[in-house]
């Protein structure tokens, strides 16, 4: 069929222009709510332009006209057929206190896997150092942790000057960014069907176990608890949350026993993935501050009992928060 192109253009160009203007307005003002007559008109314009595109597809191969109409139809299609909720006003407090703990509880299985792998790593690291003390240099990557625990405790407790004086903020910032990068990698490695996430969590556990057994064997349990608990009570759960997000991603990629397509599965978990990463990020900011401003101070400056009590309180509060917060509220 050959259509009368000039007549066709003259007849339809006004409605195309009207649709283009409507789409421009919608894109400029995404929060604006259309009235019912405006919605009806928008839908009519979409249908009319779609029909025009069909006509053009069968009667004329003018690439410019076709591209123009395809662009209009594609933009309108995105507006009309989107059924997912629009991201409205940001509510950070509601998100953190309600959405985040609820998301954590909704995907608890992935968290238990994270925890189990970390514990397995701790056991392995502790056993490796218990039976082969020479392995310390291989397992523990940080130079500062390789010195003898007793020597370190003596040095820290007898220090006359604050070695972090004037650098606490910088140290906190470095800790935050480093831990955030570790958490980010742990989550992102879920793309390797979870193998990378599992390896990352296990390795973190190995380091933790090796350092722990090193201090325990040296009889420095109080120092170890006072040093690690204040920030570790939040930092380690944050890494576990990142691992939970990584396994969620891996689960969606693998899709065991699911009848849905990979795209559908990924679409379903994407809000949870972002929420868990965001929640872990907030916790790491807190952990970074605590590590820089409290964890590095030991007796006689700060009593170990106080630091341990602080850490236990943090861990209890975090556990309670994740277990209970938002459980009664309607989203």
């Amino acid at each position, binding site marked *: 069929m050959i259509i009368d*192109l*000039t007549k066709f253009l003259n007849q339809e160009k006004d409605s195309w222009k009207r649709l283009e203007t409507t789409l421009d307005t919608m894109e400029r003002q995404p929060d604006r709510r259309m009235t019912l007559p405006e919605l009806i008109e928008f839908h009519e314009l979409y249908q009319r332009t*779609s029909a025009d595109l069909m006509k053009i597809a069968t009667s004329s191969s003018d690439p410019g006209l076709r591209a123009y109409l395809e662009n209009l139809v594609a933009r309108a299609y995105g507006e009309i057929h989107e059924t997912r909720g629009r991201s409205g006003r940001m509510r950070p407090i509601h998100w953190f206190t309600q959405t985040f703990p609820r998301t954590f509880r909704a995907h608890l299985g992935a968290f238990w896997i994270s925890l189990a792998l970390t514990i397995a790593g701790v056991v392995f690291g502790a056993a490796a150092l218990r039976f082969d003390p020479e392995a310390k240099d291989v397992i523990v990557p940080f130079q500062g942790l390789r010195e003898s625990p007793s020597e370190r405790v003596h040095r820290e407790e007898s220090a006359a000057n604050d070695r972090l004086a*004037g650098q606490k903020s910088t140290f906190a910032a470095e800790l935050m*960014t480093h831990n*955030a990068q570790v958490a980010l990698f742990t989550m*992102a490695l879920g793309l390797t069907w979870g193998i990378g996430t599992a390896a990352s969590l296990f390795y973190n556990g190995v380091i933790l176990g090796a350092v722990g057994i090193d201090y325990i064997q040296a009889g420095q349990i109080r120092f170890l608890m006072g040093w690690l608990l204040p920030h570790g009570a939040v930092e380690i759960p944050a890494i576990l949350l990142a691992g939970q997000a990584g396994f969620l991603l891996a689960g969606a990629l693998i899709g065991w026993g699911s009848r849905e397509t990979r795209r559908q599965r*990924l679409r379903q978990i*994407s809000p949870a993935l972002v929420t868990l990463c965001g929640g872990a990020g907030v916790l790491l900011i807190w952990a970074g501050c605590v590590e820089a401003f409290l964890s590095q101070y030991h007796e006689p400056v700060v009593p170990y009992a106080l630091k341990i009590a602080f850490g236990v309180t943090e861990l209890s509060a975090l556990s309670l928060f994740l277990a209970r917060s938002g459980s009664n509220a309607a989203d």
Partner: protein
Amino acid sequence: MPRTSSNLLVLRTPEGITFSLLLASPVSRCLAWTIDEACIFGAWGLTRQVVSAGGWLSPGLIQAVLVVGYFVISIGYGMACEWYWRGQTVGKRVMRLRVMDEQGLHLQLNQVVIRNLLRVIDILPGFYMVGGVMCLVTRKSQRLGDIAAGTVVVRQPRLIRPDIGQLLGAKYNSLLAYRHLGARLKQRVPARVANVALDAILRRDQFDPGARLEVFADLAAQFKSVVVFPEEAIEQLSDEQYVRNVVEILYGSVNGRT
């Protein structure tokens, strides 16, 4: 239901309408990324200047702000730009690229965040090696972040409102005087031949001069074999102008310009 055809992502709406999106090539994406890296570097330099100018801050705090600032800018730049500009960063705007939902729907904040967070894997082991290879081997030119977020990067050609009527009706058309022959032409010329002629006119500037002469000579011969216009109507008409006159008849009213 999306499907791909070479570098096109073809989408079919529930109403049965098919439209296509032009997928961005890895090269254009790489250029956009280079521009974005320059922007991040510039924003970081600006932040450093502003923060360093704050003499009332302690040196430790300045350093802390710089450490966190770089991390936030490098991670947040893509997220902020793509969310605010609906799928575009500065680099993508320059290269006329846009991130879109792979089903043609609205780009969601979750998708923007995920594709930017997973960049840490795509850039491994350096210079976007993983992401680049994935773009080359996946049907929709998606890096890992795009696959997880359900997004594609499309090219947005410059769109011009169609004005074919002006193009076709620019000169006096001697063939319009013979309405019965015009009607016969419309009756006998197949739609696909008419489309080829229209395409040839619209794309005339893309042909080499020699090829252009050849194409219009072939088309003119084809039309002349279908309907013979009197000699005085086609006297001194070049093949190209003859084809233009025929196309104006085919795509316009039989009675002349509308």
